[in-house]
């Protein structure tokens, strides 16, 4: 899903970059979550 302005220059490349780095981004998201929001 994408939110924001439409048809910006470089959008397709940004989507591809997010897809390519999906696992490391998810890892970082989980690692930096506040402790009170981590479910057991």
């Amino acid at each position: 899903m994408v939110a924001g302005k439409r048809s910006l220059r470089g959008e397709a490349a940004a989507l591809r970059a997010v897809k390519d780095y999906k696992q490391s981004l998810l890892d970082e998201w989980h690692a930096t979550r506040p402790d009170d929001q981590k479910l057991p």
Partner: protein
Amino acid sequence: MTDELPTFSTTELALGEQVGKVAAPLIKQGMALDSALAAAYPIAAQQLIDAGEDSKEVEAALARQLSSRGVLPKHDTFAVSAPLHAALMESFEHWLKTLPEGAVRLDEVKVKANTGFEMVLYPNESQHAGFPHVKVQLQDGAINISIEDGRVWWRGSAACAVRRRPSAR
């Protein structure tokens, strides 16, 4: 009274341990804590004497522990030492200084991976609701992209256009 903790002899420590062992089954049976301890003290002292401890020391320890049982320091007689007082006051003042005022800044994380774009992660869901997504800074503006495809992370206002792209799946 100072902030120094009281010290106990080995006999007193042994007596305390034995009292705990004797009182635990009574408390488990439903006896009140006070009466269980009162019943346990003489039994534990006798067990220590039977085990070979010096009876005078055991009796002294028993007298001291019985006299101090249930006695707590009153707030007006309890004085802390000057360094401890200073440390406590510094801690309180620091806490008052660091209290956030007004709107709290959003918790954001700059992504360190070399993706070729400037990306920002928002891991704090209480301030930034939704499934994991990144804000990617492009030349003419920023867009938010969900990291996991097929999840609707955005709940929204009309201020932000949301669309599904085949290329994003």
